């Protein structure tokens, strides 16, 4: 077995500690998922509301392991040319013209077509996109972000790549990863991702953290924010999430809010300040109205 990522992580608790060192507080389930993925070389599939720390987990893993994070943001219409590799066509044409000109100048007989073709489909004319880069550069952390936004054709294509950690390029041959990259796949569940993909991963549903954990996360991310403010923000978030809002705020919003309040130089959350900065937490007008109408900021 080649060099492992995070060799110090002999059990999930050790991995959680390593992640905490880089400022990511993983709950037990996520630590177990990360640990198993490290040891068994399976991708982690993270699903959950926006802003609960799915993407941040991949970044923290990369930082903790000291390897590069390669991110592929998915969107509708994403295809192999943008995700995997593409040929650098303008350079190929230029090369072709240059060879022709050189051959004419040298006048030592035409270049054979085979040579020329082998020349054109050389590695230097290949543009590596995130997936190929991850295969070539491994060890690294490959983040396939918001896979639910890509079409389902793309999932099928991903399956092939994740199964053997290798890419076959017809003109070049097979490029295999020296060591499988640590793969994190995230989804916001805007559509159901195909079961075939999830089956090959460790599936983890990332829920909202408890108020205590959330306060701890705010403290870790924003050391300048007072203990008291972090606690109050976390408590307010817990109340918001019980209000059945259109878009329940995630941890990312809690951190934004605490940062906004910190920037205003306060260390307690008063009702007026909360109302004034509510835009950092709630991004749907109906939600803001609802929170204000129900007086959910009252004891905040």
């Amino acid at each position, binding site marked *: 077995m080649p060099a492992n990522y995070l060799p110090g992580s002999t059990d999930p608790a050790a991995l959680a500690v390593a992640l905490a060192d880089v400022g990511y507080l993983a709950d037990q389930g996520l630590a177990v998922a990360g640990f198993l993925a490290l040891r068994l070389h399976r991708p982690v599939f993270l699903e959950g509301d926006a802003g609960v720390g799915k993407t941040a987990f991949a970044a923290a893993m990369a930082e903790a392991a000291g390897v590069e994070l390669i991110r592929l943001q998915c969107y*509708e*219409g994403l295809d192999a040319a943008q995700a995997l590799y593409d040929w650098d066509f303008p350079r190929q044409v230029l090369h072709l013209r240059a060879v022709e000109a050189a051959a004419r100048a040298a006048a030592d007989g035409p270049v054979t077509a085979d040579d020329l073709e082998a020349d054109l489909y050389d590695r230097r004319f290949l543009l590596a996109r995130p997936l190929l880069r991850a295969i070539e550069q491994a060890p690294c952390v490959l983040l396939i972000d918001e896979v639910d936004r890509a079409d389902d054709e793309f999932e099928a294509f991903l399956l092939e790549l994740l199964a053997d950690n290798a890419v076959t390029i017809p003109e070049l041959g097979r490029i295999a990863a020296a060591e499988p990259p640590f793969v994190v796949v995230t989804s916001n569940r805007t559509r159901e991702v195909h079961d075939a993909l999830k*089956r090959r991963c460790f599936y983890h549903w990332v829920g909202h953290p408890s108020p205590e954990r959330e306060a701890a996360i705010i403290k870790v991310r924003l050391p300048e924010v007072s203990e008291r403010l972090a606690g109050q923000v976390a408590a307010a978030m817990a109340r918001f999430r019980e209000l059945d809002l259109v878009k329940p705020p995630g941890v990312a919003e809690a951190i934004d809010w605490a940062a906004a309040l910190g920037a205003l130089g306060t260390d307690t959350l008063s009702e007026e300040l909360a109302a004034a900065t509510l835009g950092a937490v709630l991004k749907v007008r109906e939600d803001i109205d609802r929170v204000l109408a129900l007086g959910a900021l009252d004891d905040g």
Partner: protein
Amino acid sequence: MADLLAGLVLACRRAGVPATLDRVQAMYRALDVAGLDQLYWVGRLTLCGSPDDVARYDQAFTSFAGLLDDAPARGTPWQIRRLPERSLLQTAQSRGEASEGDPGLAVQAHDEEVLRHRDLATLSDVERREAVALLKLGARVRPTRPGRRYRPWHRGPVDARRTVRAMLRAGGEPRPLARRRRKPRPRRLVLLLDISGSMSPYADALLRLAHVLVRNRPRWTEVYTLGTRLTRVTPTLRVRDVEVALRETGQAIPDWRGGTRLADTLTTFLRRDGHRGTARRAVVVVFSDGWERGDPAPLGAAAAHIRRLAAKLIWVSPHAARAGFAPTAGGLAAVVPHVDALVAGHTVAAIEALLQEVNDA
């Protein structure tokens, strides 16, 4: 130990967790690495595939772990709140709710009162003709939207990749420009069927229509029923045999012919699925007479929200066909400013007009 694990797998399967063989193998391998004290998480990470599965797994694990004497209840409140309502989780209390919602029209929703159907053989000639006509109409419904992927086309913007490929094949000589266009993608169709007492004369036909449309494009059609609560019935409607599909759907609906809480159920739809993706860029068709007992304002707000998400919101009210009809019923008046089309849909001809609206989206 192996027996115990097999017991857990069995309990999970009974609870509806997709514990297939490869998933179970993955669980065993992971247990080797992580150790038995992580059994809860290892099982959850390997056997589950959706938040629903997680809730079912939790259920199975607690009942199973009764044997193991460490059974902390897991799962966050969020997961419990967002779980789709399933008939097997319906309690007696919810039935009470169903009938109290609208005492004037209430027909008690009992277990035995599932949808009763006649098969095509016992339909009258008129009904059979209508059913066949529905089938034909449904097959033509194919709303599309512009996709992000391209296909070769004879005009349109230049396709650089294909052009240069052709050029390379020709030894670098210029070739005619290749062109491309966006490939159309299917547009999702979301049907929201009001199955409360006041809509009961149409409910049977609506479910038939929904079945035709779901069978027509299973991946791109979603069906929910609205009564006192929201029920997603797409999975049961995917069954090929119409009688089986309708029977199972009838059993899956807990509030058949009960009252309506239209604003609440529409809002639930938005919170649960609509806002996060199901209604986005879709054609949303609501079949309802818009009969709302309480304040119509929340209903109007929900309709406006759907309108902002969807490509088109079509409201189908059987009363819209009546001569001298004006949308004055409390709920309907609140909804009308936000809909793209208000159509009748009470006869086959009217449904044809409705499906034309859908196709035009």
